């Protein structure tokens, strides 16, 4: 049987929402999403803002966003024992954009769409074995037009 990609996607979405919903309700770190800086947000979620830059954290985001309102971002890692992933946009009014809590044995590979008000560094943080690892990339938000 040939499974069409859109059907697979539909199935995937249903599973994802069923699994994610209870956790979101139970562990909503409200304060972390209110603070105004990267370090404050990291302190709120992880109790530390100490990061080690790591090539094992993969961040996929466009160089220039096609639409700042929905910028596709994927964070993944092959590291062992990944417990949590966070995405931070430094120049957004509220920098912390998303956190993902991963169950034991889960594959560390999350995709989401984030809203960006202007050009900013996007920071991907992976917590593995109790330590924070990160990588970052500039995503440009432009008013567009005037192309050749």
């Amino acid at each position, binding site marked *: 049987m040939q499974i069409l990609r859109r059907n697979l996607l539909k199935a995937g979405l249903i599973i994802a929402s069923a699994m994610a919903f209870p956790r979101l309700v139970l562990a909503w770190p409200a304060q972390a999403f209110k603070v105004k800086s990267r370090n404050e947000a990291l302190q709120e979620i992880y109790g530390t803002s100490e990061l080690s830059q790591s090539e094992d954290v993969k961040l996929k985001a466009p160089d220039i966003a096609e639409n700042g309102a929905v910028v596709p971002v994927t964070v993944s890692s092959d590291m062992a024992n990944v417990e949590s992933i966070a995405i931070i946009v430094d120049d957004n009014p509220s920098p912390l954009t998303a956190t993902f809590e991963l169950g034991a044995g889960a594959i560390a590979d999350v995709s989401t769409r984030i809203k960006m008000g202007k050009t900013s560094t996007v920071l991907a943080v992976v917590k593995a074995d109790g330590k924070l690892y990160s990588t970052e990339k500039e995503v440009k938000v432009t008013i567009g037009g005037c192309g*050749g």
Partner: protein
Amino acid sequence: MDRREFLRLLTMASAAGMPVANALARSGESSSLYELDTFGNARLLHFTDCHAQLMPVYFREPSVNLGFADALGRPPHLVGESLLKWAGYAPDTLQGHAFSYLNFTEAAHRFGKVGGFAHLQTLVKRLRSAYGEDKTLLLDGGDTWQGSGTALWTRGRDMVDACNLLGVDVMTGHWEFTYLDAEVRANIEAFNGEFIAQNVRVTEDALFEGVEAYDEDEGYAFKPYTIKKLGEHRLAIIGQAFPYTPIANPGRFIPNWTFGIRDEAMQSLVDQVRATEKPDAVILLSHNGMDVDIKLASVVSGIDVILGGHTHDGMPKPVPVKNAGGQTLVTNAGSNGKFLAVLDLDIAKGRVRDVRYRLLPVFANLLPADAEMQAYIDKVRAPYSETLSEKLAVADSLLYRRGNFNGTFDQLICEGLNAVLGAQISLSPGFRWGTSVLPGQSITMEHLLDQTGITYPETYVREMRGEELKLILEDVCDNLFNLDPFYQQGGDMVRVAGMNYVCDPLASMGQRISEMRLDNGQLIEASRSYKVAGWATVGSQSPGRPVWDVVADYLRAEKVAKVDRLNTPVLKNVGNNPGIANYPG
């Protein structure tokens, strides 16, 4: 052409009293221009960014094409004498004229117009038959369906049929995507060659809704690559459309497609193609722009040659770029039908041994029009000839657009917007297409449409605060001068009239623009409102008349189009930059 044919042409031209004959006789080089040694075993012909110019045109190359840091003095950021010196051409020769702005008006009178599909056809046929049809491929880098009145009115179809007649085998795109997605699909359907692009994907949402895709699993909207057999060898041609189409142009026409450079996907595709198809050579047909291609060539390995376009850089020699897998050659083949690139490859089993590259200027006076193509062009233009040939005004000086800042034709457009719409300041996009008009020539509606023929031509007039104006200028300036090519969009600076400014290309984003003043010298204040006119809005449709109607009103009233000054910025940090010459600012 062979020597006998050249002499025959020369005799004909002399008999007709054509100045070109004398000029060519003096230059003593034209006899060899189209006589190419046979080299290698596969020939790729490449043109790009013809912008729908079916007829021969004048096209002035830039005198300002700045590069900084790694790009300082590196092709394509060389103009005029610096460019000719690098290329090894003398001024006042056919090539000196084709590749530079030097003495443009005088040289244009001497050497005549360039391009035109009927003349291009003659050259293509000659180069194909001389080398062997079965060993030759014709590639089109895109920006083919837009740039003229007839392309606009036929929604690109006049160019699809012209390319079918020309025998284009493979193409990719950019301005092609400024028609509606269904029209793009219909044009591709009517195109006899293949349309390829690895970096155009159907969005997840659209896939979910069942929108057509070439490959649902990978999300490819179009075929990503094709394999062509040339003689004994197999070549993989990968397509790369303009990565920032829905940003630089309206996304609303093509809501289901998403773009991007996708360099990692490119590497995976190259690896996959090399492993599964076992080609003897891998070629990238790219619409990235030359700086982006040079960076891409440094981060992706396994591509032998990138045949590039978008930035309209007529570069006579390829630029070699080192990468993990060895070396990739990067080319850029100019615009407006002015050039045909010839890449001859000496291919062994599984690898390219050596190459010869030439970028041939297409001089209409040296290449007789192909009768079949000319008949087609005449037919497709006939219904519009009255509109196109309307004389709006006489050009008092040379009119052109290309360059990092205001060209003279932009100045006319901006002053027309201010005058007709009653604005203080006007903005006009830094497109790199648009043909040139010689002093004393009539500016026809066709010329005006060459500068403005887009599917989102509506004008606007609105109150804009000084800080908004600065934001726009800073934003566009960063798209031009960001030191990382992956953050550049390949257009030029937005054109202005009614105001002046100082620009420091080396400053960081948000800090490049200063000293914004009205023409009367008054400082533009951040919180004060100004009446600003413009056109070509990408976000949503503007309410005003199409820009060509507004500017045509202005030109008809002016009768003689004079450009007394250019609102080009005062520049900082450009001393000794070989990408600028004769700058009026």
